[in-house]
């Protein structure tokens, strides 16, 4: 029984233990707020040497702290203030930064209040192995709790709280090391360990020094640390402010000031301003858009001044100009690398007074204006400018150091110099950073964080985080991919691995009858179950069986790996899996969501071994109508693991009549009927450019070739039954847990998304696209045929897919019932159940289904809507990121393969034009799943109305050639290394109908 006590709060302490005040809400109501606080003496200090506090389970702060710092020979602990975490997180996170850290509750709360992403990093940091971080709840400890005084700002109050806590810690430490407490006269050095306040606030340091609290600025501290040179580079620009960065602010002001936050909020509320995420244009670095809910089209931002220091992903506030000033998006490709070669990194505001970068858009602007007059007003888009930033979404970016920005006078010197880092993503501006290791970083991939973007600086300022390795080396590329898409890829920690079964590889299903594992489990070991997966699949999470029943119906079963038997809620493994959200598949690497022992062995439904499964078993009529369905935990022994191709051959071979083959045939006939039904209900048959990379051998992982993925009947067989299982499970868990069921939905796209595609199709091919419902869309997509060109249909499907929204997981209690539907599958309800090894949402669905059939009680966290929503948000984001990372990895390997092929001769492929610009064409090479850009240097005539471009013939007498969207062209593909960025980029040149190499 827990010990229940009444906490006493003496009335004489009321001044610091209770607060009563009135607060005015945003709506103007006055609210009375009552808060009390119970101060205690049992808040642990975390010092291993301390005997006064109740001993914590795991004292984090070692006896003498860190002894390696020159200024503190007696050992020390650091106690950083809030701003240190807000601006120098990279430094603290660095493995080279080793002193034990005292983290105050005041600091954590302030960080949480100021920036949620940094707060998340902070909590992750506290859990990192190898870091000694002790969270001290100073606001609850009687000696360190303080109240805000009259005319003291909240900031000052927090600073005082931090100083008080530091002073207390030092006094407390002196208690623990009594022998060194008496000072030897004449000796200045303090011999016992100290807690050092780390702060960059000079005023704060002054007061601290007056009060005798040891304190030091971050820069000073780092300079005295062991690995000073490498740590100094990690210092954020904000930290170097007192080192001479101030002067820059006084230069020319390039950007308008942001409006104050209350004005922004009032403006948004009044509808005068709009809030949205800033999206940079990947074709034109001087253009961005902000989709806002109030307008049908996103707000266009043209030029640097109007984008006003917004970076991809920021939540910004825009002001929309008068309608007369609205413009259409530019139709030219403007490449930052090409136009900004000569910028000098050293001067920020004044650089290139000739404004070589501004000149381009100016000249463009001239032409554009002419073009604009011809354009239909419908194409104009709301245009505006950024007037404020609600939230920055800055993170670490993978960059290259631009070689041209290195000072030429001392190319190899180790002096501090300012260089440009060009992010790999085309959506980001270049970042200016100061480093001592510039020459060493050339040609490497490096991680850089943005610290600030001052009004007087054309580019944001950042600092170096760490180097990833040589550009184009596979490891560096891989790691940069993972970082770019924020995939957590560190190996599993000890705590996580501790959750695995102790038997390890030797774990087997215990003999029947022993209870435990066998409790309420059905014995399905006798069934002829097999799995069908892509070649080389190691994490087999589904297996199937089918057999005729005596009454003429058919029993079909889908057996899913019983991951929830091994992964229990509220364990380190569970929270790690929830944080990872999904397994990420790169071409040559898989980043698992669960430790490999589970994923590829214990949970994997490998053939000829007994495995635990969660089975969905239907009785289906021969017409594939469901008679009934039941779900049960089971034990199965798969009879075979097929690849798609193998299964197909087996099915087609008339000589084989064994039960396994019969089962596959039975499943196949059912799957065909299920698919027909689904299609009749209006399911979409979408396409995305999927290619497969052949690797030479598993060791070298040199790509040999690229081919399109082949689709066989058996692929669709598996798919149909997985859909069936998912739908059946979705129904069941939504019935049992209407508030918290984890489901998946796909919202119908707004019809405006299709406008452009419809327009292109109508003008170019005279085809119409009916987007009124998913069924209508499916039908009209079927009619988009070009008899001469079978790939045309696929192309239209790919383009249509891009117009749609992406599917998402959600918690059934948090959205209205009529938005549950899955548009693409035309199913009223859907979830993910069939891949618990590689998707966390499936694990949740497993737990909910297990509770729905009464196998286990549902864990309380799954009863909480807020908790489910939180988990689902993470999983959605991870899922999206994993997809993008996978795609980017394929792209990288396609590039490598092309390079390999290019060495043997030039690569020419057929391609379709998918976009037309004034000075180029966007083309899609379906064979390689590759999208590229063909640029023309010479003048062309651009017909925006008809999505066509006319290239004047090079000879005087020759005929002009017109190319328009959907035309088939032949391109030559080369991979060239960009001199400026080290970026291996795919370059395409038109071969036919005209050769564009001189154009």
């Amino acid at each position, binding site marked *: 029984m827990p*010990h*229940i006590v*009444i*906490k006493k709060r003496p009335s004489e302490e009321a001044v610091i233990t*209770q607060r009563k005040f009135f607060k005015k809400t945003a709506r103007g109501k006055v609210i009375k707020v*009552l*808060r*009390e606080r119970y101060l*205690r003496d049992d808040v642990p200090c975390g010092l291993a040497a301390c005997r006064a506090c109740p001993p914590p389970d795991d004292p984090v702060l070692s006896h003498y702290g860190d002894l390696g710092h020159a200024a503190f020979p007696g050992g020390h602990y650091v106690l950083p203030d809030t701003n240190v975490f807000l601006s120098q997180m990279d430094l603290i996170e660095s493995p080279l930064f080793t002193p034990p850290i005292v983290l105050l509750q005041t600091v954590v709360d302030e960080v949480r209040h100021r920036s949620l992403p940094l707060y998340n990093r902070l909590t992750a940091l506290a859990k990192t192995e190898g870091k000694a971080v002790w969270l001290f709840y100073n606001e609850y400890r009687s000696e360190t709790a303080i109240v805000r005084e009259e005319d003291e700002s909240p900031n000052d109050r927090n600073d005082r709280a931090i100083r008080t806590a530091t002073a207390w810690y030092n006094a407390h430490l002196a208690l623990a090391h009594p022998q060194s407490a008496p000072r030897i006269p004449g000796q200045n050095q303090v011999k016992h360990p100290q807690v050092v306040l780390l702060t960059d606030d000079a005023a704060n340091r002054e007061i601290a020094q007056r009060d005798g609290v040891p304190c030091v600025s971050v820069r000073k501290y780092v300079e005295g640390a062991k690995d000073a040179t490498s740590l100094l580079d990690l210092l954020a620009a904000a930290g170097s402010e007192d080192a001479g960065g101030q002067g820059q602010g006084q230069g020319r002001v390039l950007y308008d000031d942001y409006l104050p936050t209350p004005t922004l909020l009032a403006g948004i509320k009044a509808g005068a301003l709009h809030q949205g995420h800033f999206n940079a244009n990947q074709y034109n670095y001087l253009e961005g858009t902000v989709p806002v809910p109030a307008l049908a089209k996103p707000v266009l931002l043209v030029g640097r001044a109007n984008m006003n220091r917004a970076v991809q992903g920021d939540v910004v506030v825009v002001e929309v100009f008068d309608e007369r000033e609205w413009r259409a998006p530019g139709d030219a490709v403007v490449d930052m690398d090409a136009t900004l070669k000569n910028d000098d990194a050293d001067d920020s505001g004044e650089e290139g007074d000739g404004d070589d970068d501004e000149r381009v858009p100016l000249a463009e602007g001239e032409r554009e204006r002419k073009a604009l007059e011809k354009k239909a007003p419908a194409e104009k888009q709301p245009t505006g400018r950024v007037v404020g930033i609600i939230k920055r979404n800055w993170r670490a970016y993978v960059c290259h150091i631009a070689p041209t920005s290195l000072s030429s006078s001392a190319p190899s010197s180790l002096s501090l110099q300012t260089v440009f880092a060009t992010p790999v993503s085309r959506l980001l501006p270049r970042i200016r950073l100061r480093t001592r290791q510039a020459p060493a970083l050339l040609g490497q991939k490096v991680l850089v964080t943005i610290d600030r973007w001052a009004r007087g600086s054309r580019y944001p300022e950042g600092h170096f985080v760490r180097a990833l390795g040589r550009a184009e080396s596979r490891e560096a590329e891989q790691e940069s991919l993972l970082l770019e898409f924020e995939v957590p890829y560190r190996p599993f920690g000890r705590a996580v691995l501790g959750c695995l079964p102790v038997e390890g590889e030797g774990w087997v299903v215990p003999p029947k009858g022993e209870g435990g594992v066998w409790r309420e489990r059905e014995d399905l070991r006798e069934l002829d179950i097999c799995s069908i997966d892509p070649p080389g699949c190691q994490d087999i999470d589904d297996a199937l069986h089918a057999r005729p029943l005596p009454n003429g119906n058919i029993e079909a079963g889908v057996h899913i790996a019983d991951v929830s038997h091994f992964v229990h809620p509220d364990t380190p493994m569970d929270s790690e899996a929830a944080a990872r959200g999904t397994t990420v598949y790169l071409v040559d690497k898989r980043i698992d969501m669960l430790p490999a022992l589970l994923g590829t062995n214990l949970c994997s439904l490998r053939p000829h071994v007994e495995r635990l499964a969660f089975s969905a078993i239907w009785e289906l009529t021969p017409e594939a109508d469901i008679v009934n369905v039941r779900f049960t935990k089971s034990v199965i022994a798969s009879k075979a693991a097929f690849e798609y191709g193998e299964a197909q051959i087996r099915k087609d071979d008339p000589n084989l009549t064994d039960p396994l083959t019969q089962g596959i045939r039975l499943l196949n006939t059912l799957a065909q009927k299920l698919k027909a039904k689904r299609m009749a209900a209006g399911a979409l048959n979408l396409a995305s450019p999927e290619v497969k990379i052949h690797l030479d051998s598993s060791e070298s992982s040199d790509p040999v070739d690229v081919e399109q993925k082949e689709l066989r009947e058996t692929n669709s067989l598996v798919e149909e039954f997985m859909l069936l299982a998912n739908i059946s499970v979705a129904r069941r868990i939504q019935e049992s847990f209407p508030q918290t069921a984890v489901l998946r939905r796909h919202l119908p796209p707004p019809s405006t998304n299709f406008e452009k595609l419809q327009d292109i199709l109508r003008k170019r091919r005279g085809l119409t696209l009916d987007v009124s419902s998913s069924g209508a869309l499916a039908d009209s997509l079927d009619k988009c045929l070009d008899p001469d060109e079978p790939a045309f249909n696929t192309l239209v499907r790919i383009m249509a897919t891009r117009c749609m929204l992406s599917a998402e997981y959600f918690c059934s209690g948090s959205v209205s019932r009529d938005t549950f539907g899955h548009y693409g599958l035309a199913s009223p309800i859907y979830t993910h159940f069939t891949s618990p090894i590689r998707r966390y949402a499936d694990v949740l669905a497993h737990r909910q289904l297990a509770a729905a059939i009464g196998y286990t009680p549902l864990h309380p966290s799954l009863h909480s809507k807020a908790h489910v929503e*939180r988990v689902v948000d993470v999983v959605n984001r991870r899922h999206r990121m994993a997809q993008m990372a996978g795609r980017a990895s394929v792209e990288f390997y396609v590039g490598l393969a092309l390079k390999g092929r290019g060495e043997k001769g030039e690569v020419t492929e057929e391609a379709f034009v998918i976009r037309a610009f004034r000075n180029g064409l966007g083309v899609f090479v379906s064979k390689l799943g590759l999208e590229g850009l063909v640029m023309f240097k010479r003048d062309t005539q651009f017909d925006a109305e008809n999505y066509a471009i006319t290239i004047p013939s090079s000879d005087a007498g020759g005929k002009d050639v017109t190319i328009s969207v959907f035309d088939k062209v032949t391109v030559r593909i080369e991979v060239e290394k960009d001199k400026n960025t080290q970026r291996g980029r795919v370059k395409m040149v038109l071969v036919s109908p005209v050769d564009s190499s001189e154009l």
Partner: protein
Amino acid sequence: MGSRVEILNDGGFRSDGRRQYELRDISIDFSLQGTADGSVTIHHGLTQVLVSVFGPREAKSRAQTIHDRANINVEVNIAAFSTGERRKRSRGDKRILELASTIKSTFEPAIQTHLYPRSQIDVFIQILQLDGGLLPACINGTTLALAAAGIPLFDFVCAITGGVHSASPMLDLTTLEENDIPHITVAMMPKTERVTLVTMETRLHVDRFEEIFGLAVDAGKVIHKEMKLAVQARTSSLVSSLGVGSKPEGDRGMAMELDDS
């Protein structure tokens, strides 16, 4: 979660520095209010409730008389300034009437009403400040006020709220916590461990319920100790102010009534 306040942080502290099973400070003041036969002001954390008891006395109207026992009349008034949002509540406010009738039915099995046929016991409850745990404070206050008025009770009635945040149960919730997590209120009689009231206005899973219910009953016993001490202190101060020596014959009845649990 919309709010930025952590209900229970990693160190195991709640937003006010208590741990899961720690109850808020309770202070009990028996000073008499006006002409009441018994009255008490109870501070439970920052919740303040003033309870005055009149009676047993003759019923005001015939309609309210019950021929074989006393009628308990409970009236609750929530002061406009007591809650976060200032609001005047009319006497006919349904929530207040419900609260009053809940308290009434909680005390029906605890008061020895059969000793006073055809009479009435009035309980007037003023809520002066509210920071969670309204109903428990009212019930605990009423028990003490009834005792102070010398009305015979079978047993104390001790009430407390219990809630569950994710998987962690916690006791005695503040307004902040009540708004965020599912909770129940339990009133129990410590001598017999009989439960006279369980209410719940939020959804709570049945498995969690059992756990919290058990905890709340245990917490009731802790509160009982606190209440008993207060009553004893009150009695002994009354005795000493009477100027009589030790153990006066007349007061023993009340003391025994309260002391034999």
